[in-house]
């Protein structure tokens, strides 16, 4: 019997097969580090007198805490400042490359890795951040880990892991104009639920996936964790190779040819069997938005706020009741009538150049509605620079949006970019949890196109409403 893509990558990284109930020991090719989930791990190393085994497979940046305005100044919040300074000290002490605030390569860890060409097909990639699944877009096996595991990887460059099950997500057909990768993944999560992928590695495949750019593929893999899956993958192809070629850390010359030859083997065999399969037709898809407080509570924008009484499952009904109370929404309200006061364009889900381009195209010659604040936060300083070279910053500023520096920003509000209690956002980020973007804040997850159209109209909208 053939192997799935995930099984191939797994098998190529087994340092030691576990005996009986023991997990396999897996080698880790790339370890990304940021300021929030690493301080206690470095402390653990110091306490045990351990070193970082492979600083040359480790790279750090500052993203979660960083302010997106006044980045040349010291961070005002002393606790955030301490955390960032602690990362700097730890990286210096243990010999790890760091891209700090102000550096050309600084940005969200999952935007930085791919743009440097460090994320490549067939690799194992980890980071103390659940959205590490992003890197699966390259055919890498990439997943988030906790701080104890961060310490484990720093000390040993390996992780003990139990084998995942595999799930194929077959997306057939062709996306209609105005429908994006974000809508595909929101539709998948709405279909399988926030626990649907639990214990699985998802492999996104099919015509609609193959047609996507690398940036769009990253958007999809990024939100695998929102379906409960630790990792999501897409088989590498010509689109992947074209994206990687010439990047700072991509192989060069004869090594490039050798790498591409190996990467071409990285696809699920025709006779491979998945533990589960899910089908979605892209032809029928329209823009999706979330109405509730978990990413599985989403619907097409053309629908209405659901009535909890219509949920057959008791747990889902209770969850919907609590969500509507928190979101201050009434059953039956058309989703298009929901008014927002904030629009956030950014994050590791939708903070890349294509996302900014898509939103700018909608905003060009238009204005952000009165009473709406729009934040545009590029995923990295390199994305910011590239956008400025194309004049996108001018489009955003002329429309009345705020053009910021790179970081995680309002996706999780660890820096000053937060919603106030009762404020409502349309956000291109990945989580609509209670209080995620600020205590008492309400979040609707949307694509960059819907975000831009919503900014113009002040209510949840798609570009065709303009």
């Amino acid at each position, binding site marked *: 019997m053939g192997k799935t893509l995930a099984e191939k990558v797994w098998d190529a990284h087994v*340092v030691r097969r*576990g005996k009986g*109930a*023991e*997990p396999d*020991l897996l*080698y880790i*090719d*790339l370890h990304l580090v940021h300021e*929030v*989930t690493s301080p*206690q791990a470095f*402390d653990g190393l110091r306490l045990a007198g351990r070193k970082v085994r492979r600083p040359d*497979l*480790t790279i750090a940046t500052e993203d*979660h*805490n960083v302010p997106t305005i006044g980045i040349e100044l010291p961070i005002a919040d002393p*606790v955030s400042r301490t*955390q960032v300074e*602690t990362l700097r000290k730890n990286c210096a002490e243990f010999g790890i*490359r760091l891209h700090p605030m102000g550096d050309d390569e600084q940005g969200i860890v999952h935007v930085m890795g791919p743009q440097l*060409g*460090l994320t*490549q097909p067939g*690799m194992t990639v980890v980071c*103390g*951040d*659940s959205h590490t699944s992003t890197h699966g877009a390259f055919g890498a096996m990439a997943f*988030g880990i*906790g*701080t*104890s*595991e961060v310490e484990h990887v720093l*000390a*040993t*460059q*390996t992780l*003990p892991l139990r084998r995942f099950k595999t799930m194929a997500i077959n997306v057939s057909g062709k996306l209609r104009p105005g429908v994006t990768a974000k809508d595909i993944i929101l539709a998948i999560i709405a279909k399988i639920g926030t*626990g649907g992928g*639990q214990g699985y590695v998802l492999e996104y495949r099919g015509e609609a996936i193959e047609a996507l750019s690398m940036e769009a593929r990253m958007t999809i893999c990024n939100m695998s*964790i929102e379906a*409960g899956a630790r990792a999501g993958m897409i088989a590498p192809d010509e689109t992947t190779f074209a994206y990687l070629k010439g990047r700072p*850390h*991509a192989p060069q010359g004869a090594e490039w040819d*050798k*790498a591409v030859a*190996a990467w071409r083997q990285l696809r699920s065999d025709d006779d491979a069997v998945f533990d589960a399969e899910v089908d979605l037709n892209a032809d029928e898809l329209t823009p999706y938005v979330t109405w509730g*407080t*978990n990413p599985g509570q989403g619907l097409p924008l053309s629908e209405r706020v659901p009535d909890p009484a219509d949920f057959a499952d008791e*747990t*889902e009904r*209770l*969850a919907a009741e609590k969500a509507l109370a928190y979101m201050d929404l009434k059953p039956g309200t058309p989703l298009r009538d929901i008014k927002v006061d904030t629009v956030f364009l950014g994050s590791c889900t939708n903070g890349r150049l294509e996302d900014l381009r898509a939103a700018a195209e909608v905003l060009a010659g238009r204005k952000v509605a009165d009473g709406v604040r729009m934040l545009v936060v590029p995923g990295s300083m390199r994305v910011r620079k590239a956008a400025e070279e194309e004049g996108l910053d001018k489009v955003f500023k002329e429309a009345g949006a705020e053009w910021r520096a790179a970081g995680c920003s309002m996706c*999780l509000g*660890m820096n000053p970019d937060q919603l106030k209690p009762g404020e409502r956002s349309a956000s291109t980020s990945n*989580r609509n*949890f*209670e*209080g995620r973007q600020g*205590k008492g804040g309400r979040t609707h997850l949307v694509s960059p196109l819907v975000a831009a159209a919503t900014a113009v109209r002040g209510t949840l909208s798609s570009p065709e409403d303009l």
Partner: protein
Amino acid sequence: MEPFSKHTGVGVPLRRSNVDTDQIIPAVYLKRVTRTGFEDGLFAAWRSDETFVLNQEPFRNGSVLVAGPDFGTGSSREHAVWALMDYGFRVVISSRFADIFRGNAGKQGLLTAQCEQADVEQLWKLLENEPGTDVTVDLNEKTVQCKDFLTTFDIDDYTRWRLLEGLDDIALTLRHSDTIAEFEASRPSYMPVTTPR
């Protein structure tokens, strides 16, 4: 890590599904660089509501949390485990846990006992009818007991063994340093390093 074999403590019924790690501890509490003191962030938003279960007297000192399905979804923050443990929880019972949360809990000695949803419902009833009732969780036997109600729970054998022995993962892995070095020597030459070119 302290070995874990059996724990008895006040059970806390948390009638919610999809308790994500942002609810367990909001991001603003993640800025500390120390390993302790995260109890103040535990369920921070919900604790400002007087009617929240942990604000009810007998539940305040609970140590066995009984929650709805999909507990610990979302962010990988291990702070969620630290916050639960710093507060005093030793066991979480649910019918389904998010993978990363469950892994983190196993590293720290917080037992995640997976029960059938029907058993969770039964525990909720018992704990709500008589607030302050103890729940006993026995890792050797893989059982949960509350008054006369006795049921079993699932946990993988390896995590169970590590918890029972209180073993440190890193020390276990470092026993295989030679095998790791051997593997390293066989990696393809085209794989990237992070040192600047």
